[in-house]
């Protein structure tokens, strides 16, 4: 479309270590940011708050999981448990009277502490064994939540989150809640973008690829795995707390069940391990496509005058979306992020690449 690399020269290392080295990428990111900020004014608030807001928060959470699974290469099947720790500790802190700013940080830190303490024990196992151990963490957390009324209020109870209040402002409006989600997602995204160009990110990838080669360069694998778990749990904890504070408004154990853990992992894998933009796409697919397919099926059946019973209607979206995941991973095993990358690379030189043929 445009020869977007043409005329882009980096004459010093500062400019060569920018997040977006190609101006076209930077402009696209800025345009999306403007769209994100303007969304409450241009889109109906129903869409903004029931689709975009959870999308943003889940993207932050998925990026956290991507950090430990995509960057550091440690399969994590208990991510929802970590989010639950963050959510419950933040809400209890807020109910106790701690200002929300600190409550969120307390949520993040307690998730981080529990997540890395657990990792400290679990990381003695590798690969699939580690995955199973993290699954155990999920089940332990499920059990703790349903069996300790002090934390969750009992097995079928839910915990009301106090009204979100940041910087002295009570945030109750739809727009306000959306902006909180947007701000958190931006923070996490910027952190992850920086991770791509700092020693910490490189060390994590080194640990993922070849831990013995990393060791010989002075990278202590165990330490960096723990750091990855701690960071990812912090992000997960705060995201879990925000999910309850801005979307669910009350916390219940089933919001953080094992199914949610699997779903989070699916978001990361469909989006692409180690891909930031991929996490956005992956969350969109897993979170929004079932609803979309449902809408399409309902409209289509009405148009065609077909009678579809409720049970079939409930299953079609699941089948379609399962098929979509399989198709995407067949086309590009590295996920939607890589698919986007391929298209971008193709457009980068089009139409000039045609000249060679």
């Amino acid at each position, binding site marked *: 479309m445009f020869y977007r690399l043409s005329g882009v020269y980096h004459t010093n*290392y*500062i400019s060569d*270590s920018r997040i977006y080295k190609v101006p076209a990428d930077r402009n696209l990111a800025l345009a999306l940011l403007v769209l994100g900020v303007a969304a409450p004014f241009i889109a109906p608030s129903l869409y903004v708050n029931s689709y975009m807001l959870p999308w943003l928060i889940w993207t932050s959470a998925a990026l956290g999981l991507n950090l430990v699974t995509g960057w550091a290469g440690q399969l994590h099947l208990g991510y929802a448990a970590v989010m639950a720790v963050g959510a419950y500790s933040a809400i209890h802190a807020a109910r106790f009277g701690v200002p929300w700013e600190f409550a969120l940080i307390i949520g993040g830190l307690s998730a981080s502490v529990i997540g890395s303490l657990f990792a400290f024990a679990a990381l003695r196992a590798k690969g699939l064994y580690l995955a199973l151990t993290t699954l155990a963490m999920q089940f332990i957390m499920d059990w703790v939540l349903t069996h300790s009324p002090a934390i969750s209020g009992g097995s079928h109870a839910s915990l009301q989150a106090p009204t979100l209040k940041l910087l002295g402002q009570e945030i109750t409006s739809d727009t306000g809640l959306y902006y909180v989600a947007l701000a958190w997602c931006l923070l996490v995204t910027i*952190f992850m973008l*920086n*991770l791509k*160009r*700092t*020693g*910490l*990110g*490189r*060390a994590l*990838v*080194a640990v993922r*690829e*070849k831990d*013995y*080669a*990393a*060791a*010989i*360069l*002075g*990278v*202590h*694998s165990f330490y960096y795995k723990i*750091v990855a778990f701690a*960071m990812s749990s912090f992000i997960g904890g705060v995201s879990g707390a925000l999910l309850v504070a801005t979307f669910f408004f009350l916390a219940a154990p089933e919001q953080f069940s094992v199914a949610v853990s699997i779903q989070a992992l699916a978001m990361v894998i469909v989006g692409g391990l*180690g891909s930031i933009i991929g996490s956005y796409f992956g969350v969109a697919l897993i979170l929004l496509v079932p609803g979309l397919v449902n809408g399409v099926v309902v409209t289509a059946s009405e148009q065609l005058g077909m009678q579809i019973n409720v049970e079939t209607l409930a299953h079609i979206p699941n089948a379609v979306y399962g098929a979509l995941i399989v198709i995407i991973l067949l086309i590009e095993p590295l996920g939607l992020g890589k698919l986007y990358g391929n298209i971008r690379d193709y457009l980068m030189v089009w139409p000039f690449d045609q000249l060679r043929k």
Partner: protein
Amino acid sequence: MRPEKHQPHDEAILECVGIERRFGGVVAVTGVDLAINPGEIFGLVGPNGSGKTTITNAISGFYPPNKGVVRIAGKDVTGVAPHKVAKLGVARTFQNLALFNGMSVLDNVLLGRHIHMHPGVLPTALYWWMARREEIANRMIVEEVIEFLQLESVRNELVDGLPIGLKKRVELARALVSEPRMLILDEPMAGMNQEEKGYMARFILDARAERGISVLLIEHHMDVIVGICDRMLALNYGEMIAGGIPREVVKDPRVIEAYIGGAHG
């Protein structure tokens, strides 16, 4: 002729005394002594399975020796974990390449600077204020080595797709940027053609000349060993069979027998 026993002396940069390493009932190496002086290129040869790589693994901490002592610049490092040995100025390359796939050549080489950098969560979050200066300063050092090894044209390419000769060079670059005192090269020329071998030999000599690095070189190419090594040691079945000046060692009947067999018959 018994191989010359290197007496422990203070100036040796790397010293192994009576190294023995067993894997279950298999004795991989036993009674191996070697001492490498600063600025020396030391060759280690031997047929497959003679224990060359086991010795490098004993030095770098992957397989701590069952018996014997490893000293780096006089400091006992026997059984010290690999990531700590790296901090003492020992760098190495691997026999079957250990580059990090999915990363660019530049990032791979930058990882060699790890021990000189202070990566952390805060510097990553506050990149512009806490990490950028360090990243740029280390980038400049890395670029010097990239220029030295003529890797400029592949700097931003993923290492996955490079030809093996270039991969070996990237691995050498990654080892060199850590500014080691002791560089262990495990078959850096395996699978290379004559021209690539020539380049690699020149890089090793230049690295020594410009940076004063001591090198422990494991190779099967005897022309290289004779051409660039100051001293050498030959192993067979995990034991030392000959040591000294390469031109003389390669003529030793036991070395010839170990390599091609039947020299005395």
